[in-house]
């Protein structure tokens, strides 16, 4: 196979496919037959009301929660069948931004960013690690906080550090749980730009959970509306915005 054919194939390669995903907590049915496919170099934004199960969805994807039924396959590997070792290998290709940031509060910003690099402890030497950390911090505009503790940062700064930590290994699929929540509009535009530029630079795919219409408009190739545990609609931003359906309209008002 020559290289251009290979690139073509990667272009419309499906990197993630979810079929019939169900998850409930006791009597609380959160996801009920949810389907989704994510292609390579595609950003999908998931819209849904608070408590509709968006965070649960991406936690199932990364294997922090076990789905009750249904299949999740990443790079053609079924997540539920993987052993610890294989799951770990797979996760190396995934980035996950927690809604709560989940920064290690007993470590400095530098140590926080170093942590994901421990996975490759042989691959990088200390100077390379330093370069990577500084690069990631520069991307989010917080290079001067490198030796601070997370507790000394504002909420928005913490979000950006968490984002830097997610992106430091340049994962192929990135799962963002509300990347712009709690940021002012200028910073949030910068973050959206960062998300877009990462996609262009590294040809990553992303699943973005967001309520921020700017983010939805600018960063999405496709928008999915999560309603009653199902994928209620899946289309481009423009199409959904002009949709007649009352339930879809609510989200764009």
């Amino acid at each position: 196979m020559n290289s251009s054919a290979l690139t073509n194939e990667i272009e419309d390669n499906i990197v993630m496919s979810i079929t019939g995903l169900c998850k409930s907590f006791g009597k609380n049915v959160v996801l009920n037959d949810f389907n989704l496919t994510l292609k390579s170099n595609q950003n999908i934004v998931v819209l849904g009301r608070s408590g509709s199960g968006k965070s649960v969805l991406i936690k199932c994807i990364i294997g922090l929660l076990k789905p009750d039924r249904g299949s999740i396959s990443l790079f053609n590997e079924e997540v539920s069948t993987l052993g610890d070792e294989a799951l770990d290998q797979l996760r190396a290709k995934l980035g996950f931004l927690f809604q709560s940031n989940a920064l290690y509060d007993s470590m400095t910003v530098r140590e926080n960013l170093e942590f994901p690099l421990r996975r490759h402890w042989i691959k990088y030497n200390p100077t390379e690690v330093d370069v990577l950390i500084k690069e990631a911090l520069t991307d989010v505009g917080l290079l001067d906080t490198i030796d601070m503790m997370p507790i000394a940062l504002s909420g928005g700064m913490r979000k950006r550090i968490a984002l830097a930590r997610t992106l430091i290994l340049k994962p192929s699929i990135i799962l963002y749980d509300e990347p712009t929540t709690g940021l002012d509009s200028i910073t949030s535009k910068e973050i959206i730009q960062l998300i877009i530029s990462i996609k262009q630079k590294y040809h990553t795919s992303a699943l973005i959970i967001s309520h921020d219409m700017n983010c939805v408009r600018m960063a999405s190739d496709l928008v999915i509306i999560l309603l009653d545990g199902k994928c209620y609609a899946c289309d481009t931003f423009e199409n959904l915005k002009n949709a007649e359906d009352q339930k879809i309209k609510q989200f764009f008002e």
Partner: protein
Amino acid sequence: MKGNDTILLFLEEVGLIGRFTGKFLSQWFKPRYEWNELLRQCYVIGYKSLPLVGMTGFIMGLVLTMQLRPTMLSYGVESQIPAIVGISIIREIGPVITALIFAGKIGSSIGAELGSMKVTEQIDAMEVSGTNPFKYLVVTRVLATTLMLPVLAILSDAISLYGAYLGVNINGVTSAHLFWMQVFDSISFNDVLPAFIKTYFFGFAVGIIGCYKGYYSTKGTEGVGKSANAAVVVSSVLIFIIDLLAVQITELLGYN
């Protein structure tokens, strides 16, 4: 009915702790080894509890001597004070008091630390970023408590005995040479070894219970408080249970 539920809950808890311990036993010797974190934990856990353990040990030795004195005097065996105090400190009081103080200080802080990491999803974040949180957090802490408590107990014994020496000298004059000779003459290998071995188990119990309570902390800040509290209560009770078992075992083996 209610009693039944309590018993069931208790048994369930015992089962879960057993499983957690099993997980530790099956994981601790497997790579990857978190040496740096282990050393850091040994430093934090061992070195930082030193002042507290030293102080309580000193007071115990001093007070015990002063309390024993009137009785010993009335039996006319005042000269046996160093021997009696030495045996009781080394066999029982040193290890148990040190372990209890250790449970209060370290058990609660491990419970609270892991509990708040759990609640704020930091443990999940570790898992996602390719570090086994059980190895990184639990194995290192349990090993550190297991290794550090015996060291602390020995130091505490020594400081206690020094306290006892001062206690003896408050009312009379005993030379240091005579005091230490009396202490060491009365102590045999069979006094020291079982007491030393049991401190490993005390340390293990404090570490395992603290980690278990924190690692499975329920959501919310209240859950963190509960974890810290339960860690201290359960590990303190466990220390006494282990102590009880230890004395039975040494008795059976004829080392008592």
